Structure formats: C-alpha cells, structure tokens
C-alpha cells in the first residue's frame, strides 16, 4: 500500500513538473515581445523603451530559457501566483472570486447530470434492447454530439427569448445559474448514461450471478451486492474524464452566459495576453486534476483489487 502510494505520488510530481515545463515553454514561445506586450497592456499608450527594459529585467526574460524558467517556477512552488501583468493586482484573490461562480455551477451541473443519468440508465437496462433502452441510447448518442455552446444558445433561445421564464446572461440572482447548469448537466448526463448503461449490462452478465440466484439469493441482494459495485467500476474509471468534461463545459458555458467565473477569467486573460492569470488557471487545473486522479486511482484499487496486482 505504501509502495503504491509512493509510486503514485512520484507519478503525480513528474506529471506536474511536465505540465509546468510545457506551460512555460508555451509562454516563452508566444509571439511578440512579452515585455512590450506587458508594458502596452499596463500603460495603454506609447511606452518609453526604458520602461520596457525595466519590465524585461524584472521578469528576467534575457537570461535564457532555463534560468527564466527557474525564476518563473520559484514563486509558483510556494503558491505565489503573482500579479496581473495588466492591472498589477494580485491574481490569487481574483482567481478565488471567479471560482465562487464556477464551483456552484459545476456542482449544480453535476447534480443535474446524476439526477438524469442514473434513473435513465436503470430504466434502460430493465429490458435491454427494448423500446425504452433504444430511446435512451439514441438520446444519449445525440446528447454527446451536441456541443455545449450550441445547446446553451438553444436553451437561451427557448427559455429566455421565447418563453421569458429564465434570465439568460450574467450571474446576479440564483436563478441565473439554472440555464448554465442545465446546459452543463445535459451534456454530462448523456455521456454518463452511456457509461452507466454498459456498466450495468456488463455487471448483470457476470457468470456467477445465476449461481447465486439458484441458491435462492434475493434479486434485490444480488443487485445491491454484486451488480451495483461492478457497475460502479467503469463509472469511477471515467470520473477523471468526466471531471475534464465538466471543467471544459464550465469554460464554454460561462462564456456563453457571461458568467464571471473561471472560463471568462481564462478567456479574458488570454485575449489581454495577461500571462500570470493564464498560468494561474493552468496550474490550478493541473493540480486539481492530478489530485483528483490520484484519489480516483486509490479508490479504484479498493473497488477492484485485481488492479493493484496487475501494475504494481
């Protein structure tokens, strides 16, 4: 157990280092003179060359890739995300402020997705191949093919423009979360339904279930003790992927609905070439991802002991 934990942690550290390196390499190769870009963004006019040089020296752009990388990485390692290159304000509080919009949206989306996909998958697998099953599969297939930004616009068109029931843009009232959360939730629900459905079908096809049944074990007990845990394995496997899907969905959905969360924060920062903000989002997402995947890996090993044996 300790060995696997150490192995997985080492893996996480390697992945995070790689991400940091890739991020910095990307910023390093961004077109244009970064010092000039910062100066222009900060002073919004013609800037004297001396100011540009001062900014360049501060950020140690001239010392070559590796030393610039070290200068860049140092503060990040101790959790210092620096200041916005445009406004000069600290990035961290602004990042947290945007998260206070993103986290409720993501949770609401996830809740909608679970509330839709679990009953739908259970209903579909009552009679595999039946009308209900085929309808659920068709619905889910269409659902995964619809891009979040289009679905969002369609929902706005229906519920905000035509019916006028719900507010569309912004985040002033709690009701503003409904349409974005629905957009997000429907997309996640579609892919979750597919996975759950095949997981349940596979779990029900296990060869030892008829033996239990003949021995007189109740249907309910079989479902609870043997089908449900088995069906949970593929779901847990793709939980990391679903989280990625959720985060991507959040970015797109926030942009559509003009909700001032992480997505708008990121897109605005990219457009303003405000690299400290961009890298803050990247680092935050990478850490979140690695930690979640580590947790999933550990949980997964408990759920399915065969995995530990396979790649110790």
């Amino acid at each position, binding site marked *: 157990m300790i060995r696997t934990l150490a192995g997985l942690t080492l*893996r996480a550290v*390697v*992945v*995070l280092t*790689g*991400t940091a390196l*890739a991020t910095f390499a*990307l*910023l390093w*190769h*961004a*077109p244009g003179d970064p010092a000039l870009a910062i100066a222009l963004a900060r002073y919004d006019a013609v800037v004297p060359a001396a100011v540009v040089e001062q900014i360049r020296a501060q950020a140690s752009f001239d010392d070559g890739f590796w030393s610039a990388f070290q200068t860049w990485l140092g503060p990040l390692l101790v959790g210092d995300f620096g200041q916005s290159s445009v406004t000069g304000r600290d990035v961290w509080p602004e990042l947290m402020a945007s998260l206070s919009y993103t986290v409720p949206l993501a949770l609401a989306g996830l809740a909608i997705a679970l509330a839709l996909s679990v009953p739908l998958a259970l209903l579909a697998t009552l009679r595999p191949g039946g009308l209900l099953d085929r309808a659920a599969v068709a619905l889910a*297939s*269409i659902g*995964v*093919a*619809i*891009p979040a*930004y*289009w679905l969002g*616009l*369609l929902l*706005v*068109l229906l519920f905000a*423009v035509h019916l006028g029931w719900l507010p569309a843009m912004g985040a002033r009232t709690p009701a503003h979360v409904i349409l974005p959360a629905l957009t997000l939730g429907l997309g996640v629900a579609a892919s979750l339904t597919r996975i759950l459905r095949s997981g349940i079908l596979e779990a029900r096809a296990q060869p030892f279930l008829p033996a239990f049944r003949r021995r007189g074990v109740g249907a309910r007990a079989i479902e609870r003790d043997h089908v449900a845990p088995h069906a949970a394995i593929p779901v847990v496997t793709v939980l990391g992927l679903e989280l*990625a*899907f959720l*985060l*991507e969905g959040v*970015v*797109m959905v926030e*942009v*559509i609905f003009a909700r001032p969360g992480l997505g708008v924060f*990121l*897109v605005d920062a*990219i*457009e303003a*070439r405000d*690299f400290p903000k*961009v890298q803050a*989002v*990247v680092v935050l*997402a*990478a850490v979140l*991802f*690695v930690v979640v*995947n580590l947790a999933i890996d550990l949980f997964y090993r408990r759920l399915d002991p065969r995995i530990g044996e396979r790649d110790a």
Partner: protein
Amino acid sequence: MRSVFILILILVAIAVLGPLLAPYDPTQINIPNRLSAPNSTWLLGTDALGRDILSRLLYGARWSLGLAFVISVIGLVIGATVGLIAALGGKVADWLAMRATDTFLAFPDIIAAVVIAGVLGAGTGSLIFALTVTGWMRYARVARGIGLSLTSRGYVVQARLAGLSPLVIAWRHYLPSLLPSLAVVWTGMFARAILGISALGFLGFGVQPPIPEWGTMLLDARIHMRSTPLQMIWPGLAVVACVLAINLVGDALRDALARQDRTE
C-alpha cells in the same frame, strides 16, 4: 450499419464537392440584403453581412471536416509512434513515454487547446498545433497496451530472434494488429477535433474570418439571436450531424471488432 456508411459518404461528398454545390461565393458581402430570412433566393437566409448562409455552410464543411481529418491523422501518427516506442523500447523508454502521455492527459484537452491557440495567436496554424498536441494520448495508450500484449506472441519472438530491427518489427508485425483498434480511437478523435475546431472558432481563437467555419459562424450568429434565431441553428446542426455520424461509425467499428475477437 449500411445507413451509417451512407451518412458518412454524404458528409465526405459535401466536404469534397461543397464548393461546387454552393450557389454563391461564401465571402460575397451584400449589405442591402443582410439578415434575410430563408427564401427562394437564399435557401437558408443571409448573415449580418448579407453572405449566403448555405454557401458558407458548404464551404465550411471543408474547413471543419478537412481540418479535423488532418488533426486526427497527425495525432494518430504521433500517438502510435509514442505507444510503439513505449511497447518496444524497453523499460526506460516505456516510463518516459507514458509519463509524457500522463502529463498531456492530466489536463482537460479543450482548455489546453484554448490556452495554446490563444497564447500562440489565433490562426489556422495555431489551431492545428493546439488540437494535435492535445489529441495524441489516447492513441499512445491503446498502441502501447496492444503492443505489450504482442511481445510474447510467437511470430514477434521469432522476428526478434531472427535479428530484425525493432523498426521493421514495429512496422511489419505490430502496426497491422494495431490498426483496427486505432481506427476505433480515430473515430472518437475525429469527432473531438470537429468539436474542438468549432469550440475554438466560437471563442474567437480558431480559423479567422472571413473564412467560413461553423464555430465562427455560430459566434457571428449569436449576436443576432433575437432577430434571426434560425441563423444560429444551421451551423450547430451541421456540427451535431457530423459528430453523430462519426460516433455511430465508431460504435459500429467497435462492435465489429468485438465480434471478431469473440470468434477468434
């Protein structure tokens, strides 16, 4: 199954023949007739600059489907190479290749693509780079997995004992066994690329105007949602139809592969 392939044939035909089928020049601006509703002259109406939407959709197919094809094939080549290096190159190569794969997988790929394309500056080149860099990992995983399972097969052992170079073994003995599974991954990545191209276009980081591309068309249409909602329907519908068709092909391929495995 057959209907799925007919659907694909139609899509390919549209992408290849689109410009021939298009009734107008997709970049021809016609301000007096801007935001026209669908009628007999403009079958799907016109956009904010009076350009024919049908023509833009047909030309756009070339960008959306063509670029997605290029991106998914480059990803296939990179991914298969990394996967085979991991499977054949010994322990150190395997560890390095897989950690590189993990690193790129550790991140929501569309967000990574947005960051990459945005930071490098919007344009078709950045778009291709952003979506290939974030789109090869699943191929690598699959190629490595199958590659490792082949290592102890008789013909592979024989080839190695006969002194064939790893390159030849990879090309002649591994690749043919990999291709069916890689094809299934490819359908998924092709669909992903279509979604990615239009997502980046929608955010303004993709193919740049005046080139007609479905995501950018959607971005333009969004502003006029209240006056001409239909304008927003078409490009989205095009994306959904393509992604759905490709996913169906992927499902059919996967089922065929599973059947073949069972009979073996």
